[in-house]
């Protein structure tokens, strides 16, 4: 008995009999399930949209209160003149009882600044001169007090510095570079659809959207596909150097529903991929930073293990906002380009190699 003979016999017996049991469930229950699928699809879609909008609003709300002059990149003299120290002097100046004391004390910040920055000395001297002028304090009294001040010892000056510990601390908080941080986030990418062109002597797997094809054959047959919104979840580590450059690496899992039209149904795809790259913070202050990064990524379809590894290049521009002492919220639009591999495999990612996504998440600074 040759292969075809026994194959046909078996096939004929199994498929053409009439003793098959009817399905246990009714059509009504199937229909109810279909309605719930439709509802779930709508809910997921709008949940994603609402999450993205909420995150964007939260980001804007977080950055607005901090839109003050907090840049650490400003000129040293200006930074000193705008420092909280000067602000305190301005406040105290308005209290009459304290004004005289301040007129004496105005030397203290001036002296502190004198060995740091000449511009700051000028700025603070102006403040003290204004005070003296406004309050009509006798010039000789001021001179006497200043003379007395010049006799103060170095240790006394040192102790004065201890009067401003909170200011020293605040200044140190401003510089948050040279740090390691860990990120936890998710990304929402664009949906796509199009046509896959297959060679005549090709085999394609509709579930994975993969086609094993002979590139030399004419690409006449084609199938339409639809790739639902891919969603990613990932963890990353980022190390920022003192000059604002940073290294970033991580791993992400991406899932999406792929439908190949015309003949087949679809399937849920899961990709897992490590990524690594470099970037730079082009703006940064204590509570906000804006950056751009270029990363490379390798995606492997773990739900269909025979699919090829997909290398891609990502370009992202992101912003992050401080939420707490170590936590940041980041939002990161990203453009991804998937490279076509050299083997004879076609995949939906090659049809539309560019993909836009928005990543949202939290970073925790060590």
């Amino acid at each position, binding site marked *: 008995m040759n292969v075809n003979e026994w194959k046909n016999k078996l096939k004929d017996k199994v498929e053409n009999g009439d003793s098959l049991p009817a399905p246990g469930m009714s059509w009504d229950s199937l229909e109810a399930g279909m309605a719930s699928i439709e509802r779930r699809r709508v809910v997921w879609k709008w949940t994603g949209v609402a999450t993205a909008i909420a995150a964007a609003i939260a980001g804007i709300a977080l950055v607005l209160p901090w839109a003050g002059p907090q840049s650490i990149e400003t000129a040293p003299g200006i930074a000193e003149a705008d420092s909280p120290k000067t602000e305190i002097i301005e406040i105290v100046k308005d209290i009459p009882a304290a004004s005289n004391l301040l007129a004496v004390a105005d030397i203290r910040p001036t002296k502190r600044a004198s060995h740091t920055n000449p511009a700051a000395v000028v700025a603070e001297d102006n403040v003290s001169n204004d005070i003296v002028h406004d309050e009509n304090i006798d010039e000789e009294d001021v001179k006497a007090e200043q003379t007395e001040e010049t006799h103060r010892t170095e240790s006394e000056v040192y102790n004065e510095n201890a009067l401003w510990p909170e200011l020293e601390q605040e200044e140190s908080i401003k510089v948050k570079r040279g740090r390691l941080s860990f990120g936890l986030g998710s990304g929402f990418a664009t949906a796509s659809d199009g046509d896959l062109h297959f060679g005549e002597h090709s085999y394609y797997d509709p579930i994975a959207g993969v086609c094993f094809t002979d590139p030399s054959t004419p690409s006449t047959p084609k199938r339409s596909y639809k790739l639902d919104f891919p969603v990613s979840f990932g963890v990353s580590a980022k190390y920022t150097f003192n000059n604002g450059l940073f290294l970033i690496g991580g791993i992400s899992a991406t899932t999406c529903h792929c439908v190949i039209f015309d003949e087949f149904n679809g399937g849920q795809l899961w990709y897992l991929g490590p990524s690594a790259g470099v970037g730079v913070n082009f703006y940064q202050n204590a509570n906000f930073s804006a950056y751009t990064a270029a990363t490379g990524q390798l995606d492997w379809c773990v*739900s269909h293990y025979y699919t090829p590894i997909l290398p891609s290049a990502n370009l992202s521009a992101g912003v992050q906002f401080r939420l707490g002492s170590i936590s940041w919220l980041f939002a990161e639009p990203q453009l991804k380009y998937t490279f076509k591999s050299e083997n004879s495999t076609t995949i939906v990612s090659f049809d539309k190699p560019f993909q836009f996504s928005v990543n949202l998440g939290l970073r925790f600074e060590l």
Partner: protein
Amino acid sequence: MKQRLKEAYEEHGAQLLAVCRRYTPNMQTAEDMFQDGFMSAFKAAQSFKGTSEAELYTWLRTIMVNTCLMRIRKKDILKDAADVAFQAEVPDDDVGYERIDQQTLIEMISTLPVSERTVLNLFVFEDLSHKEIAQKLGITEKASINKMYRAKAMLAEKIRNYER
């Protein structure tokens, strides 16, 4: 389209359920696969461009097979499909398929080991070549051939035992 699916369900429900039944020894799992298959059909309904009942049946049948394969892949059962040499004796005579009733034969196929059962189903009932099966399941062509022959031998053994 929903109406057409309903008609197909009433007309071919039993045959489509039998397709799922061949891929799993558990009737409840087969019914789950059947239901999932119809859900997938509903999701992809807009993509179906056929007009005849036969085309609709073929489309639904393909969906059922893919749904069953997805379940099998999820469990990663075939991942250990090693390229082992076939040891069992391959029956070369009539093993008596026609003497067994349809239900029993389907049950026998469904109780074969998962990788043998899957290869047999794809080779016999879906008319795929061993090369296509190998690509679909992520195994080698040689492993597919071996598994098909082993499945054939096991099925013959089951029939012999049943007839005793």
